């Protein structure tokens, strides 16, 4: 039985992954902001086969509380097999009013908070001698594009931090997986026009669960064709990226 903590549990991708983990009878601690949405997900996961589900209501942008939260998670679960860090926001860069304040908020939610959680969970995994840390980054972190480089910058930070951690612990029982989804149809992207490149949250959730089952470490693009797209994008000259 896997013991799993999910930060930002009611995000669509986290929810989809949790449902797949639940099918195999996992135990959960779900961390999120919205008590009602957490309650709904707890009930849902129990019906789907979860052995046990608890929730913690927390505003993850209050970074000072994160070490205590992680200790609580470890004490409750005993051993933490998987930590999935999935919270984040996607601001509309075009309608920003107070750029400085909003950038600070964005950095706090998308970069500082998940980074601290990565560091804290890795500390716990070291005491256990094992554990699988999964962090949701994005293909947006691979290149600064005019339409969303603030968001991209926060994800670039997570990608580099996670990749470095993964390489440092390569060959050990501590795995760090940086997940870079492409376009995903979720609450966060509800306002976007969808096309053929879009994946569903359950596709991405399923890919995460099977990557964990295989013990994958390092960087994973999902769906997989994004590895090829981003290989091209990373190497594209800037006059092309300007138009993206």
């Amino acid at each position, binding site marked *: 039985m896997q013991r799993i903590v999910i930060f930002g549990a009611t995000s669509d991708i986290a929810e989809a992954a949790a449902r797949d983990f639940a099918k195999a009878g996992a135990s959960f601690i779900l961390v999120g902001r919205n008590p*009602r949405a957490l309650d*709904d997900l707890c009930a849902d996961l129990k*019906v789907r086969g979860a052995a046990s589900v608890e929730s913690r209501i927390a505003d993850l942008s209050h970074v000072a509380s994160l070490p205590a939260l992680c200790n609580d998670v470890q004490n409750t679960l005993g051993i933490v097999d998987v930590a999935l860090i999935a919270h984040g926001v996607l601001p509309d860069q075009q309608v920003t009013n107070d750029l400085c304040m909003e950038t600070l908020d964005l950095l706090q939610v998308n970069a500082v908070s998940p980074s601290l959680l990565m560091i804290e969970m890795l500390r716990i995994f070291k005491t256990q001698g094992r554990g699988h840390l999964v962090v949701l980054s994005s293909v947006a972190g691979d290149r600064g594009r005019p339409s969303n480089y603030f968001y991209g910058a926060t994800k670039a930070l997570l990608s580099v931090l996670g990749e470095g951690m993964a390489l440092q612990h390569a060959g050990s029982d501590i795995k760090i997986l940086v997940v870079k989804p492409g376009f995903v149809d979720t609450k966060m992207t509800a306002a976007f026009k969808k096309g053929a490149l879009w994946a569903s949250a359950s596709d991405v959730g399923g890919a995460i669960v099977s990557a964990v089952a295989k013990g994958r470490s390092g960087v994973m693009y999902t769906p997989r064709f994004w590895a090829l797209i981003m290989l091209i994008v990373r190497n594209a000259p800037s006059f092309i990226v300007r138009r993206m």
Partner: protein
Amino acid sequence: MAESEITHASWGMYPPEPQHMRKLTSRHAGLPLTGDETVLPYGAGRSYGDSCLNTGGTLLGSAALDHFIAFDAATGVLTAEAGITFATIIDTVLPRGWFLPVTPGTKYLTLAGAIANDVHGKNHHRVGTFGAHILSFELLTSDGGRRTCSPDENADLFAATIGGLGLTGFITHATIQLMPAASAFLDGQSIRFGNLDEFFALAESSSVNYDYTVSWIDCLSGGTSLGRGHFLRANIASSDLVAARGGKTGAGLPLSVPFVPPVSLVNRLTLRPLNALYYQRQQASVVEKLWSYDQFHYPLDAIAHWNRIYGPKGFLQYQCVVPVAVQREAAHALFLEIEKSGQGSFLAVFKTFGAVKSPGLLSFPMEGATLALDFPVAGERTFALLDRLDAIVVEAGGRIYAAKDARMSAATFRAGYARLDEFRKFIDPRFSSGFERRVMGK
């Protein structure tokens, strides 16, 4: 609240009218109404015609309301949100010995859609419609109401909403009674029959000992073999039998129709050979079978987007029922008309309904025989044929299934549904659909 525009919103891709969609994000929130638009709940879009469309208004999408709420594995009582699909329900409850009490021929519909259309299945002759197994649901109405409806509470609204085509309000979640299932398999026989008389003899002799019956008919053979086909009858298999015969649920190849071809692949050239081929593929008169539930209940689900084979003009489904007293004569007249026209579907589905009453005011099934086929939209001649079929059905005292309709007249609808006036009182003033405006004449 997420707003979007969608195309091909109904399964028949006809009428081809773009729709405005607003997705609900939580069952706890109120109805998201703006201005004076009309709204219509929208699940998986598996209705074929315009009963799931609201052109000029807004669809209220339930896709994000996909949470289970409670399940008692001892009693089989399940509570879940409106937008959960039958596929998800089966995945979750079948390993614990339960199955849906009633399922139509696709598992990709939603729970609330099943209620709104009071769907039926191959076991109708034993257990009635899906509506007969609903313990309760919660309904949001435009007056701000949030009501629990059950046979004992708001019973009139309960009856109007079952089969009510989403017009009485928005179902947020429902509680249903599941059915015990000893395995994921069905065992029974596939029996080849030569004409309609043989069909009715088989239907009668099978109705007592088989929970599930259905037939595929070669609707393009005439003369003495009018109404020939294959009769399938089955029961849920015991786990011992499955073990003894080595049943495998292994997923088939992931087949899909990846795009809409420029013309319908079902046409005058392909129809007759496809039907004859299907009929001839079983040579023995009786074959013992062990089906997985997917093979038995959902053969078409194995091909994703199968509706695309009908090309860009889409297709019309047609399902009617004629009462038991005249079912032989009426079925004969229907098959003759279809055979004469040379149109018709790749496989018509034919089955007898039983006498179990549904609570729904606008419920489709009645005791008698039901026929379902699909036709590529081939212009006026298709509509003219369906009008002729309507006339036979109305004459016989039968009715047409709203979930599959995009073209029947208001008079045909009224003739079939005696409780329409009673139902009308429960239509929420802010709710409407293309189907409602076309045939119910508010």
